């Protein structure tokens, strides 16, 4: 039972434009959400997170938006750079330590 879903397996965007990655979840007990970036042959790298008490969190070029009523979150990358080409995973926690549930990932390709 996939409780965290990333329905877009891939996204192609031009350098300098905005990348928008989407994530949906089904478990209303999730109260903390995270985004990770993964390059080939490396482990996932933490990018940004958001608590369920907020609807937006920003860190440099990365902004995460949370819509609890829709059980939806998104990651915005502005402006997109070639180094952003990677697989991005959405993850969620229901407060239990270590119990992160991951989405299937979205492959982002930033073209010059």
């Amino acid at each position, binding site marked *: 039972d996939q409780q*965290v879903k990333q329905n877009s397996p891939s996204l192609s965007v031009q350098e300098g434009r905005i990348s928008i990655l989407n994530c949906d979840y089904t478990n209303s007990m999730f109260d903390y959400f995270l985004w990770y970036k993964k390059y080939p042959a490396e*482990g996932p790298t*933490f990018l940004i997170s958001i608590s369920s008490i907020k609807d937006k969190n920003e860190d440099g070029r990365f902004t995460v938006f949370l819509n609890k009523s829709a059980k939806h979150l998104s990651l915005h990358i502005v402006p997109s750079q070639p180094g952003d080409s990677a697989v991005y*995973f959405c993850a969620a926690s229901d407060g239990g*330590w*270590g119990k*992160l549930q*991951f989405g299937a990932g979205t492959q982002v390709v930033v073209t010059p």
Partner: protein
Amino acid sequence: SAVISQKPSRDICQRGTSLTIQCQVDSQVTMMFWYRQQPGQSLTLIATANQGSEATYESGFVIDKFPISRPNLTFSTLTVSNMSPEDSSIYLCSVESRTGSHEQYFGPGTRLTVT
């Protein structure tokens, strides 16, 4: 963030054999986690390893198949026993953030291929 290393980085193993994966952290941590990423799929938590106690396994994973050791606060091993081709995956260890948030930091992973 913590610096995490894993050994081996990759291996090709024969069916029926076992492989032990090591995870080393550059600082003391209470909880270490083991994940699996099967080809084309997401990361799935196998178990949580606390120093001084038995590992806690997630549904679908059992100790006989994935025995875990946690001898101290900076080291853990995961063994994949009696391997079959279905065990071909990337195996990752992670640790929790020292800030007390839900963030986890991951090692580089071990790519296992079972033939």
